[in-house]
């Protein structure tokens, strides 16, 4: 064991900033991180063991116990439940004979839950040894578990056709589907790799940024910060090393558009990074890829290598003296919060993904304390298209304040879930028509951190100042119990994914969940509703976007569907309804064999 671990450490030059990579490689090798490995890391990196454990225990996919020869992570997002996850979950437990969050005694199978894996349009879905299995049914589970018991290779666990497009590439070989329903600008087929680079090498750096400024491009991750400003802030820092990160950690439940871009148009993303590299004078790009998309890593690395061979990356790109730009891939470890840009940087530096306080902003002090630009996958793709076709073309798309197109990942109760590249400004009604959704109770715009809207708001437009979104759209049909099926799931998601650093986020989210449960149980009172709205102001004191929106599943439904809550309330009384004496004495009576007699 020692030898393998030492090799891994040496491979990353014993650089403690690459701790994440080392831990991920060790996990890959042993299905867990053995104590001896922690000893070696501690010794070689000169870090205390608690420091290493601090990082390990933060990430969902890094474990201290063996997760089994076949490790099964079944997604537990709302879209999964809508598609029949409950049956699949039962089937897994029945076929394997073990419960979730355990490993079979022989160490063969481990069953675990996991947050959204970016397959919402083909749920229920699971990751088994990092390979994606979609559209699961009880029959398919049976087949998978049987094949596991027969010792088959992960590739052969389930008979299924490979997905369309690049999903069938020999380096991916995944049954994942792209489900592209509409492509407009980013996903259109008119892209020729190198076209943007050819253009910019004839330009000054400023000109490139100006073109982006004129196109009025805003960040596509959700926050909508002007891209050119981020670039300018970094470009204006004193000379020295600068970094470019592409944020491919799309963890918002219900979003999967970056997966499709990275599968079908990875050159577009890498070229966008190189363009940014030229514009801000940086020679190092890092793609932060969420762990759930690990199955794309080899393929993406191959694309990078091919681009290097064509001199679209590497030294003296396209013969331009002084234009050097390299890209490496940094894997995440399973943490939604790492989609927050400063948490992402912490993670990339080998730490827990706890967001940093701002200022300083990453543009000034980012990765390894150097100026850093962090852009979303879709943003960087847009950059290339803007340079190819000009800012006028781009500005013609969308609305005045939201230029261009947006990739929507649409799932839930509709006929045609999948990717829709629309122009900003489309109404929810139009969108629902497009995806074939009838009898809609609510639409979750922007994932759990976004807004859950009701039919009387369906004439609103998807654009930054009205209904902003990073791209996750979940359609919720009339037959769903909104509070139980959706709001509770999302609230639990935030509790699971909170980094736990800020007190309101760590503590109040749990209190929100308990209060919601109280209301669902028919024990809530009006004061509970008033309180949940008041606590919003405390949640907004949290450091990062996760904490500042973790109450949204409850608060947006409380605002938009007040009747759902109010109809479950009881009158507040001097004797609290939450307390049930017969329940409270039950355990004692069971223990002592006494009859539960309660005199009134």
């Amino acid at each position, binding site marked *: 064991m020692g030898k393998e671990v030492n090799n891994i450490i040496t491979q990353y030059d014993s650089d403690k900033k690459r701790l994440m990579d080392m831990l991920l490689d060790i996990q890959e090798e042993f299905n867990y991180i053995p104590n001896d490995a922690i000893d070696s890391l501690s010794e070689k990196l000169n870090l*205390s063991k*608690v420091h290493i*454990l601090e990082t390990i*225990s933060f990430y969902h996919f890094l474990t201290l116990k063996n997760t089994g020869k076949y490790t099964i992570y079944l997604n537990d997002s709302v879209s999964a439940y809508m598609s029949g996850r409950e049956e699949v979950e039962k089937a897994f437990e029945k076929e394997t004979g073990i419960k979730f969050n355990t490993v079979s005694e022989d160490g063969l199978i481990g069953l675990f839950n996991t947050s959204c894996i970016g397959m919402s349009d083909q749920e229920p879905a699971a990751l088994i040894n990092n390979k994606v299995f979609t559209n699961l049914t009880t029959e398919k589970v049976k087949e998978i578990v049987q094949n596991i018991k027969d010792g088959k290779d992960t590739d052969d666990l389930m008979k299924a056709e490979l997905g369309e497009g690049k999903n069938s590439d020999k380096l991916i070989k995944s049954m994942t589907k792209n489900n592209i329903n509409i492509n407009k600008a980013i996903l259109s087929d008119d892209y020729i790799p190198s076209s943007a680079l050819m253009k910019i090498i004839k330009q000054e750096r400023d000109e490139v940024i100006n073109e982006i400024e004129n196109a009025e491009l805003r960040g596509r991750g959700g926050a909508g910060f002007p891209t050119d400003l981020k670039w300018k802030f970094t470009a204006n820092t004193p000379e020295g090393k600068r970094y470019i990160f592409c944020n491919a950690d799309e963890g918002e439940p219900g979003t999967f558009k970056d997966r499709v871009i990275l599968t079908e148009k990875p050159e577009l993303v890498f070229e966008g990074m190189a363009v940014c590299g030229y514009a801000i004078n940086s020679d190092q790009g890092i793609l932060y890829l969420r762990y759930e998309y690990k199955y794309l890593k080899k393929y993406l690395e191959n694309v990078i290598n091919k681009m290097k061979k064509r001199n679209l990356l590497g030294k003296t790109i396209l013969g331009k003296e002084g234009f050097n730009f390299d890209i490496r891939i940094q894997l995440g470890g399973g943490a939604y919060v790492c989609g927050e840009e400063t948490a992402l940087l912490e993670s990339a530096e080998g730490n827990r993904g706890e967001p940093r*306080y701002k200022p300083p902003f990453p543009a000034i002090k980012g990765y390894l304390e150097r100026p850093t630009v962090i852009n979303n996958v879709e943003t960087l793709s847009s950059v290339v298209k803007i340079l190819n076709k000009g800012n006028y073309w781009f500005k013609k798309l969308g609305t005045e304040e939201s230029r261009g197109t947006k990739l929507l990942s649409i799932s839930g109760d509709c006929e045609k879930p999948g990717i829709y590249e629309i122009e900003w400004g489309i109404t929810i009604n139009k969108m629902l028509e497009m995806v074939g959704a009838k009898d809609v109770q609510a639409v979750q715009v922007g994932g759990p951190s976004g807004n859950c809207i009701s039919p009387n708001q369906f004439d609103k437009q998807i654009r930054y100042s009205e209904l902003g979104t990073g791209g996750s759209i979940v359609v919720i049909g009339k037959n769903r119990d909104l509070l139980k099926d959706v709001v509770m799931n999302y609230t639990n998601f935030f509790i699971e994914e909170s980094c736990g650093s800020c007190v309101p986020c760590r503590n109040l989210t749990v*209190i929100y969940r308990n209060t919601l449960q109280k209301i669902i149980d028919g024990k809530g009172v009006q004061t509970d509703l008033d309180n949940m709205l008041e606590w919003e102001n405390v949640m*907004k*004191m949290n450091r990062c976007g996760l904490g500042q929106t973790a109450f949204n599943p409850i608060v947006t439904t409380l605002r938009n569907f007040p009747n759902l809550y109010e109809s479950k309330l009881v009158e507040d009384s001097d004797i609290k309804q939450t307390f049930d004496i017969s329940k409270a004495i039950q355990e004692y009576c069971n223990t002592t064999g006494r009859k539960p007699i309660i005199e009134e």
Partner: protein
Amino acid sequence: MKDKFKITIDGVELTANQGETILKVASDNGIYIPVLCAYEGLKPQASCRVCSVKVNGRTMTACTTTASPGMKIENDTPEINELRKIIVETMFVAGNHFCPTCEKSGDCELQALAYRLKMDVPRFPYSFSNKEIDASNPKLMIDHNRCIKCKRCARGIKTEDGKDLFAFKNRGDRILISIDKELAKNISDKKAQEAMDICPVGAILRKERGFINPIGTRKYDNNPIGNNIEKLKEI
């Protein structure tokens, strides 16, 4: 000489030096802004959020925000104190804070802040969550019931060669502070005392001694937390 400029806190005009945080400017001028995770000499972390103030109408943490000319800061207002109180109350129910049994009672910053903010009872139900006491270290005891995860121990207490003695484990509401069993095995009495002192609550205690200060002579028995800062104003 450093640049000096004016800011106001709750309408009082103060002189600030370039580069100083709002917290520092306030403290130097006899104005108390409550803190829990901030600690003299440590890089701020801004995780407890109780030092939140309104800067020109926006909520910011005083421990990390650098003062700049003309800032109008709200600090001791009913609105902000109510938000702080809610935060403190969540800590009381998330952990198990049995003050009467705690050696740090009277010297505890969380408790003192509750006094100052006039918390009689938390508005939330107590969680009574199951938490461990780790007494494996020969010199120190870690009581997870009382830990408020401010990370002051992890940030402030290091080995001679700069390694971490304390660190977090897990994430979200499952976070625990943990002690490096091997490195802390031979911890000196001095270091152990430092660890106990840096802890704002009674989560880190020294073994084989206790209740040194009788009731009535403890830090916050007679005067509220922040009193030492506010005294500056009177001079």
